[in-house]
């Protein structure tokens, strides 16, 4: 037995205690309502859309509050005033009703509801039927939901980024809201209410960010195991900063100094990560290419959701400029990035990266038992260092080798960037077969196909003929484009 001392838990009387308990939720509620500073508070608005929505809510709330007080007051009053005193079983007047009263309390609420409906309808048409013409130049953005991250495309500026949406302050942004897989919801509480991202049903919304700053967004529709971790940031910038950012997205980083960790990381990234992550969408034409690539990655995943070695993944162009990691989960720095690469699930349970990326699998295609990638700690650190170094460079260091416009494509470079994750140039098996001597073998593999045709088919449709002893894990690579594939075939035939 123990007693709670009175000074510790002062309750003057039982009745007061009950009253305090009843009032507690109300008090807490009112206190909580005064927290517009919270990251996703719908009251601390930073844009006209959210502000109007909050105002409409407050308008209805105060009407409801009046009704609430009247109704609850009547309930409590009736219960107390007309409670039975002593044990009298006196019969009250057995009234059957009152038609005038009934008509009154049918019409009065109806009038109140009309009063609520009029501003509501006005706001629906104001917010949902297109961007008003008089608000200035509209910026078009496509927001795409993926399990479990957001992709943002600026079609007018040919820029793609992920999880961090940059918008200029005060300008109307018109969104095309798209989902690639399941239903998500696009929501930046302080700037605008949510709109669902529904596959096959592209939606529209618009918003204006009226304050410079970084705002939180989050997926609001249950979308699977990592729903809680599907977040993003909206970075509202001045017009100049925004233009600078756009220019930066078209400026390749400076090439790393040979022998530096960045250079090592670049090689490792190209070999192990670039199947799913593009990190160089800076050159002209790369926008269209990335859209195709992203689609091809997704097609590869959906064709074999369990064993696919490819998934759609965030574009990491100029990743060093990002402020968060893992769809808005952690602040981005060397430590968090190393932790992420080492064990993504420790930060974001359910992420597709660990399940599908080849680097987390053994050569047999099985998941590695420890869940860690097949890289040393220093290699992981190099990759992280490299990624953090991805910032707009001086503008002279364009890596033209990857540009689809360049006249000559280096097959070896294409191979290093795209294939070395699974294929060695020797005889050894990484995940796919080693490719030494493939040119000789290819000619005799399938009746009626020359070596060129066979290799090209194996790149475009890997499932068409599988080398005995291997599973069909390879995604189709047709999205590389004819030039690169031709170069690749030429290069592969040189391997001895």
């Amino acid at each position: 037995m123990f007693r709670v001392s009175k000074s510790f838990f002062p309750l003057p009387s039982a009745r007061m205690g009950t009253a305090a308990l009843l009032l507690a939720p109300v008090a807490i509620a009112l206190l909580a309502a005064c927290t517009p500073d919270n990251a996703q508070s719908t009251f601390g608005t930073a844009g006209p859309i959210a502000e109007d929505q909050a105002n409409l809510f407050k308008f209805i709330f105060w009407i409801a509050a009046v009704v609430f007080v009247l109704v609850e007051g009547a309930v409590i009053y009736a219960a107390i005033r007309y409670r039975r005193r002593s044990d009298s079983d006196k019969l009250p007047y057995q009234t059957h009703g009152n038609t005038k009263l009934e008509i009154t309390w049918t019409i009065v609420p109806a009038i109140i509801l009309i009063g609520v409906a009029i501003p509501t309808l006005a706001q629906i048409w104001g917010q949902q039927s297109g961007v008003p013409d008089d608000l200035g130049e509209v910026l078009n953005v496509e927001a795409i939901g993926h399990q479990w991250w957001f992709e943002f495309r600026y079609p007018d500026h040919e820029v793609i980024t992920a999880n961090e949406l940059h918008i200029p302050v005060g300008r109307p942004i018109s969104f095309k809201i798209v989902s690639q897989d399941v239903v998500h919801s696009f929501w930046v509480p302080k700037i605008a209410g949510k709109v669902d991202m529904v596959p096959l049903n592209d939606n529209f919304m618009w918003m204006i960010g009226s304050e410079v700053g970084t705002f939180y967004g989050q997926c609001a529709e249950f979308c699977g195991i990592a729903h809680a971790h599907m977040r993003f940031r909206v970075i509202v910038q001045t017009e100049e900063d925004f233009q600078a950012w756009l220019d930066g997205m078209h400026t390749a980083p400076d090439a790393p100094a040979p022998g530096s960790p960045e250079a090592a990381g670049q090689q490792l990234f190209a070999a192990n990560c670039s199947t799913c992550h593009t990190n160089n969408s800076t050159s002209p034409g790369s926008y269209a290419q990335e859209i195709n690539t992203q689609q091809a990655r997704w097609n590869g995943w959906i064709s074999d959701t369990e064993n696919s070695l490819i998934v759609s993944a965030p574009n990491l162009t100029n990743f060093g400029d990002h402020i968060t990691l893992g769809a808005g989960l952690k602040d981005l720095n060397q430590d968090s990035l190393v932790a992420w690469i080492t064990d993504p699930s420790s930060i974001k349970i359910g992420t597709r990266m660990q399940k599908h990326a080849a680097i987390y699998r053994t050569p047999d295609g099985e998941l590695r038992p420890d869940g860690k990638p097949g890289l040393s700690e220093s290699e992981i650190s190099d990759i992280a260092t490299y990624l953090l170094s991805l910032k707009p460079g001086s503008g002279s260091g364009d890596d033209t080798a990857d540009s689809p416009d360049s006249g000559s494509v280096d097959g070896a470079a294409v191979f290093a960037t795209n294939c070395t994750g699974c294929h060695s140039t020797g005889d050894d098996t990484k995940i796919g077969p080693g490719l030494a001597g493939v040119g000789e073998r290819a000619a005799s593999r399938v009746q009626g196909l020359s070596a060129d045709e066979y290799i090209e088919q194996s790149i475009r449709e890997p499932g068409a003929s599988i080398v005995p002893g291997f599973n069909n894990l390879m995604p189709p690579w047709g999205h590389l484009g004819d030039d690169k594939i031709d170069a690749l075939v030429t290069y592969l035939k040189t391997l001895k």
Partner: protein
Amino acid sequence: MANLWRKLTYHRGNGWWNLPHTASQEADPPYEGPIGGAWLGNIWRTVTHGGVSHAGPGFYWLVGLFLGVITLLEVWLFTLQGLGGLYIPILLGLSTMKFVAVVAFFMHLRFDGRLFTYIFAASMIIGISMFSLLLLLQQFGNQVQ
């Protein structure tokens, strides 16, 4: 016209808030078959006055013939292929006629307790209006601006 409408909607069932009766609780008038005299008049009375007379085989054969003819007409309209925008409304009208004929005469709603009609009609009304609304939403909703 109004007179015909009244005749067609005439129903001798009682209001169901109290205790309506079925037609079966009253003796049927003797059946006058197709050869028994004024059978066309009898059929007309069946259609217009519901439960006053129970229908007989002749009447059922006539309804069956009606159903067959309408079906034939529908298929003919299909092969015609020249009705344009009228095609669907006409077909819907024809199938509604078949629908009503089966429900009213084969399922005896014309002769039976009114409550059955209420129940079936209520669910048809709720179903049709709700699903039509759904079709409207699916047709015109989800438009990207």
